[in-house]
């Protein structure tokens, strides 16, 4: 096996430190992301780290692919600074409102356009949507083996793959071979810090923007039209603390507190 052609699926998501500023469109139930600072989806950084380690070992190229607005280039620079070689933004108004399957169709088209690949890595799920559908769907659409919930992965010189996927009470060890699509969990590695040299190098790396016509994706496959799923009701959780002032003697108050805690399931 020679050098590896590696693709990492990345998604700009609202900065978790600004979650208190997230608004929900009451009409569509969609998250309103305008004006929210974006960061690379945290799990995707682990996917990128895995790709960079493989590139360091086997050589090759790491391309990031993201279905996002043109403005995502700023967020994708973070991945280029970590060490990715190029970024491809799949951006078109026709993609707006895509559910996870429509998104996977667009991503698969982007991956095909880049050319032959050995391994596609992605964060297992995004911090905002959190469906965890995309890695498996992309694998199906590309017609290659795919794994989700991967917590450990080793690629052998001949393209063999040994991976561990997390299950509720342990893990499953899986053996296979490239090409493959893999969704990784955070346990798989610790993403590297961005170096100053990486920041400077990122300035000269290519960021391509591809529209639906570049990808050959028609309107029926993407966006609202291509989506079978619609968001259900989204609402902001109520974090307010319940307050109740108990009056009476110490004994009565304690009995009442214990009763309330039992009723809430806090005490057995």
């Amino acid at each position, binding site marked *: 096996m020679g050098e590896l052609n590696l693709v990492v699926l990345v998604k700009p998501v609202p900065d978790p430190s600004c979650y208190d500023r997230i608004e929900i469109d009451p009409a569509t139930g969609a998250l309103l992301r305008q004006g929210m600072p974006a960061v690379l989806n945290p799990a995707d950084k682990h996917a990128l780290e895995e790709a960079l380690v493989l590139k360091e070992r086997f050589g090759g190229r790491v391309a990031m692919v993201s279905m996002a607005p043109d403005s995502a280039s*700023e967020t994708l*620079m*973070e991945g280029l*600074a970590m060490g990715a070689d190029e970024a491809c933004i799949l951006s078109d108004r026709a993609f707006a409102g895509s559910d996870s399957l429509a998104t996977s169709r667009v991503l698969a088209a982007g991956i095909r356009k880049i050319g032959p690949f050995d391994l596609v890595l992605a964060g297992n799920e995004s911090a905002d949507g959190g469906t965890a559908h995309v890695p498996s769907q992309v694998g199906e659409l590309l017609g290659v083996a795919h794994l989700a919930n991967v917590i450990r992965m080793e690629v052998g010189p001949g393209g063999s793959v040994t991976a561990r996927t997390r299950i509720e009470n342990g893990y499953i060890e899986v053996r296979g071979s490239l090409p493959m699509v893999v969704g990784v969990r955070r346990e798989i590695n610790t993403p590297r*810090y*961005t*170096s*100053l*040299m*990486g*920041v*400077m190098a*990122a*300035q000269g790396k290519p960021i391509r923007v591809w529209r639906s016509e570049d990808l050959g994706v028609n309107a029926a496959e993407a966006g609202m039209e291509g989506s079978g799923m619609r968001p259900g009701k989204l609402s902001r959780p109520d974090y307010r603390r319940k307050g109740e002032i108990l009056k009476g003697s110490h004994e009565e108050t304690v009995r009442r507190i214990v009763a309330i805690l039992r009723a809430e399931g806090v005490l057995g």
Partner: protein
Amino acid sequence: MPELKFTQSQEMLRKAVREFVEKEVKPIAHRIDVESSFPADVFQKMGRLGFAGVFVPQTYGGAGLGQTERAIILEELARHAAGLAMALMTHHLGVEAILAYGTDEQKAKYLPDVATGKKISGLAVTEPTGGSDVAGQLANASRDNGHWVINGRKCFITNSSNAEVNIVTARTGEDAKGRPAFSAFIVESGMEGFSPGREEDKLGLRGSSTGDLLLNNCRVGEGSLLGGEGNGMRMALGLFTKIGRTGMAAIGLGIIRACLEEGVKFARERVIYGKPLAKLQAIQFEIAQNRIDYEAARLMTYHSIGLKEGGAGADAEIAAAKYFATEGAVRAAKRTMDLMGGYGVINEYPVGRYLRDALTTISCGGTSHIMQIIVAGQTLN
């Protein structure tokens, strides 16, 4: 006049540094202050990321950036650990000495290690006779059989226990007018006759070591002379301005931001008289004053560095920035302490450390009195 605006790569750099500092430095900031210890392992990581050689050309292993980027790093570092920022700031003094004044051989020998943080550097000028009185130094060096023999005692030297590549100034004769002439030497740790002396127990900036360096018949080769014979004074004064005072301004700026952010957090969370402190106008004034000090210090610091990078002398502007940012840090820390009431003096909260760190920055790189003398001198002339 154009607005002060950082480039996209400078903003990215700030974000990258902030992520590192919040994950690696913030968790140890309290410990290194209590223990008065320099975290060598974290410094090595900083070196690998390019912090140690931020302005060193890439050919020598640096990041190939400039003094603005350096100030961003120091500000972000000082936001959580001004002591560690002080160690890096002083390291840069030694790095710049070699970069600006070294021969090709000296650059090739030392820069790759100091630019990547494998070796720590420092600058030793101050003596018991004084720091700002550079001409009053008593350490001396004389030629002996193709070597220089250096004797003397340096004090209040940052990185004294950790630096492996020390730039040491000493008296080497007199100039044509009979005034003392000074030269600089590269002295490596472990050289015979050279050793760190007592270490100081400082009020603040305790994440860096500070102490004596002792030179007792320390013999160094001719190749250790840095910047030519008799140029030590000019070199030291140049480094104080370009690296020392700009760095201290950036550290002061980081401390002010720490106070601003901690003050805002506390004022929002602390409920008194049935509402958050932030709703009280008296508290809003304190927050506003911290913000004003931050904005002014930020403008002065980055503007003066920009002037210097553009080739201007900027001695007065840099001295003013150092004065304002470090004095501003003291004011901001005191204000934040006042705002926090009893919590302000509890060491579980970092504001007490901010105040001690801020007070300690005043004497580093020239006191506020010296800064005012420089500003006045430049203004009157």
